[in-house]
């Protein structure tokens, strides 16, 4: 790897990190929505 490519990698956005972040956060949001609307609400609404 030459110096130019190394600099390019260092200065570019961390795409891989963002992709991992999106997958993990997206999974957490989907799981939360499933538990709230699929399990909690169908068990009966409290008044």
């Amino acid at each position, binding site marked *: 790897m030459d110096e130019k490519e190394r600099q390019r990698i260092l200065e570019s956005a961390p795409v891989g990190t963002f992709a991992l972040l999106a997958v993990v*956060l997206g999974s957490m*949001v989907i799981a939360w*929505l499933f538990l709230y609307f699929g399990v909690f609400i169908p*068990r*009966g*609404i*409290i*008044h």
Partner: protein
Amino acid sequence: MQIELLIQKCQNLIGQAVDFVHDFIRQSRSVHIDDLERKWINITLSVIGLMIVIIVLDALIHNIRPPSKVETIDSARLHLSKEFAESNLGVQLDGNGDVIVRMVAGRYSFFPKHIAVPAETKLTLRWVSMDVLHGVHIPMTNMSTMIIPGYVAEITTSFPKPGEYPVLCNEYCGLGHNHMWSNISVIAKEDWKAPVQNFAKKEPDNG
């Protein structure tokens, strides 16, 4: 006079809280936050905010609210009360045709020990304690509340699925707490038969 003092104290507290928030924002702006950290913080706070917004909107749409009525009762004289005398406990229909369930919690069971209610029907469950602090939870449903001596705990909900459910105590009440339970049968709406029983209305607030 006391209310004026209370209002004064609340105003002072709100003022202190506002000053605290202003100081916090000013100090956090003086701290360097990397762009990536800022993005991460914004995304995380957005996700939390989204969840809070969903919960609030759903509560407004479905009229979900925690019980907030304060209704007192003399826990030492339940057997002498009209509403929670032993002969009046269990499942009944009120004057409007709504299903009301009256239960007494006492060490170490819930009385009556077995009740049958219809599924997919609005139920009003009224719980009282005859001795100490209890909690009641019906697993696989959202029926869960504290039963505090001296107060009537009222929950309005419906049980969507027919089946046999335990009624458990989830607040430590003594050495027999782990054995404190009873049963509830949730029967399909079309198969459930309303009990033929005279009902006693709610008593006026004893507090």
